[in-house]
C-alpha cells in the first residue's frame, strides 16, 4: 500500500467512525411527507385545470393515490406538441427522480428552437449543448398551468449531436413531469424549402397543367398533392432537402375510393437535394392522382420536401 492509499484508508476509517446515520425511520418519514406534498400539489393542479374528478384536497393526503405525474406528463406533452407514441424530436419524462436526465438527438446542422415545459412543482434546469458549441442553460419553473420556455440553439457542421440535460431540484424530482420538442427554425425551414422547391421546379415548372406543393417539413402528417387529372401520362417529381430519407409514393384513387399504388421510390434528403422523378400512366377509371412524401425516422422534422407533377 502506498502512502496515498494509506491516507485514503485513514480518511475512510476515521470519517465512518464519526458519521452518525440518521435513523432509517427518518427516511421513511420523508417518503410519507413528500408524498403528502405531492398529492396536495396534484389537487392544486387539478383545480387549476378545472378538473371535475378532484378527490384530494391539500392537507388531506392519500398515501395510496396513483402517481399524479402521469397526468402531468399528458399535459406537458400536449403543451409542447409531442407525439408520445413516437417522440422523435423530443421526449417526455414523468420521473425525474434519478437526479439528472439526458437525451441526445442526431440532427442536421441548422438552427433549432427547443420548447420545454414542466408541469407540477419545483423547477428544473435544462442545459442544451450542441456538439462543439457552448451549452445554453435555462431554468424552467414547474407549474400547475403549463408554461412554454423556448431556447434557440445553433448546431454547426453538416450533422451533429444536440444533448439536452435536465437537472430537477428536490421538489421537481418527485413532483413534476417534463417534456420538450425540438424543431427546425423558420429561417432554416425556408432555406431548405427553397432548395427543394428549386429542384422540383426545375423539372416540372413552367408546364401548363403541372403543379408543385409548397415546401413542407417532413413530419407526422403526409402532405400530398390530391388532384383530379384528365391526361394519360405524368411525370411526378419529389425532392427532399435536409437529412435522412423519405418514401415517395404515387397513388391513384378509383371511383369507389379504393387506392392503387402506381409507383414508390426512396428519396434521399440532402443539403444538396436531387430530384427523384417517376413516370406515371394514369389508369383508366381513376378519379384522382395523389403524390405523397413520407419521412423515414431519420428525416423526421429535419428535412423539407416538395412534390410536383406535369403532364407528358
Amino acid at each position, binding site marked *: 500500500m502506498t502512502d*496515498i492509499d494509506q491516507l485514503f484508508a485513514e*480518511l475512510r476509517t*476515521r*470519517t465512518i467512525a*464519526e*458519521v452518525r446515520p*440518521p435513523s432509517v425511520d427518518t427516511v*421513511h418519514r420523508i417518503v410519507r411527507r413528500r408524498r403528502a406534498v405531492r398529492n396536495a400539489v396534484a389537487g392544486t393542479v387539478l383545480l387549476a385545470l378545472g378538473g371535475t374528478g378532484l378527490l384530494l384536497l391539500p392537507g388531506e393526503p392519500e398515501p395510496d393515490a396513483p402517481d399524479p405525474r402521469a397526468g402531468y406528463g399528458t399535459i406537458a406533452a400536449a403543451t409542447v406538441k409531442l407525439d408520445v407514441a413516437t417522440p422523435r424530436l423530443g421526449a417526455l419524462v414523468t420521473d425525474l*427522480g434519478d*437526479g439528472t436526465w439526458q437525451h441526445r438527438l442526431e440532427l442536421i446542422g441548422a438552427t433549432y428552437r427547443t420548447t420545454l415545459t414542466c408541469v407540477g412543482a419545483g423547477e428544473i434546469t435544462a442545459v442544451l449543448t450542441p456538439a462543439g458549441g457552448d451549452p445554453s442553460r435555462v431554468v424552467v419553473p414547474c407549474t400547475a398551468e403549463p408554461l412554454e420556455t423556448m431556447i434557440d440553439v445553433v448546431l454547426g457542421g453538416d450533422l451533429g449531436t444536440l444533448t439536452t440535460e435536465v437537472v430537477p431540484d428536490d421538489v421537481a424530482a418527485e413532483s413534476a413531469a417534463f417534456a420538450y420538442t425540438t424543431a427546425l427554425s423558420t429561417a432554416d425551414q425556408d432555406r431548405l424549402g427553397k432548395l427543394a422547391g428549386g429542384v422540383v421546379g426545375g423539372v416540372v415548372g413552367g408546364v401548363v397543367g403541372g403543379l408543385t406543393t409548397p415546401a413542407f417539413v417532413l413530419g407526422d402528417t403526409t402532405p400530398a398533392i390530391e388532384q383530379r387529372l384528365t391526361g394519360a401520362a405524368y411525370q411526378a417529381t419529389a425532392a427532399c432537402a435536409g437529412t435522412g430519407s423519405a418514401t415517395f409514393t404515387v397513388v391513384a384513387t378509383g371511383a369507389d375510393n379504393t387506392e392503387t399504388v402506381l409507383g414508390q421510390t426512396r428519396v434521399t434528403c440532402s443539403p444538396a437535394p436531387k430530384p427523384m422523378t417517376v413516370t406515371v400512366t394514369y389508369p383508366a377509371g381513376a378519379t384522382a392522382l395523389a403524390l405523397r412524401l413520407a419521412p423515414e425516422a431519420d428525416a423526421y422534422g429535419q428535412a423539407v420536401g416538395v412534390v410536383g407533377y406535369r403532364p407528358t
Partner: protein
Amino acid sequence: MAVTATASTGAEARIVVRREPPPSFDEVYAAHYADLAVQLYAYFGDRQEAQDIAQEAFYRALVRWGGIAEYDDPVAWIRKVAWNLAVSRWRRARTALSFLRRQRAAETHSDGPAPDRVALVAALGTLPESHRRAVVLHHLADMSVAEIAQREGVAAGTVKSWLHRGRTALAAHFDVHDSTGGTR
C-alpha cells in the same frame, strides 16, 4: 444468487439456481449510508452536505425499492444517484473557487475531524473536478477504471490519466510516496 441444487439425468445436467431474497432497504441503508457519506464528503469537503445528499439518494431508492431491490447491485444505483446529485449541486455553485473557499473555511472551524483528514479533503478540493471525482470514486467507492470510464462517458485511458494526475498532485501536496499509479 445462489446455486442450491444440481440434478443429473443421463447425459443432461441441470443446475437449479434460486435467487436469494432481495435485501431490505433497512439493511442496505445501515450497511452503506456511512460509506457513501464518506465518498461525498471527500468530494464536497463538507460533511453535512455529503450526508444530506446521501440521505436524498437513499430516499429516492426507498420510493422505488420494489424495483431497485431486484437489481444485481442496488447499492450501485444509490451511489449513481448520489453522485448525480453531488455533481449537479456542485455545478450549481457559482464558482468552484468560491465554493471551495467556503467549504474549507467551514471545515477548518469544525471541531470534529483530525487535521490530516482536513488536509486531505482540502487537497482534494484543489484538484480539477474530473480528477477529484475519479480519485474519490476509485479510492473510496472502490470503482475500477472501467467502471469510472463508463460512468463518466470517457475512455479508460482518460480515467487513468485523471487518476495519475490526481494522485501525483496529492503526493506532491503531502510529500509522500506514490509508486503504483494505483489503478485497477
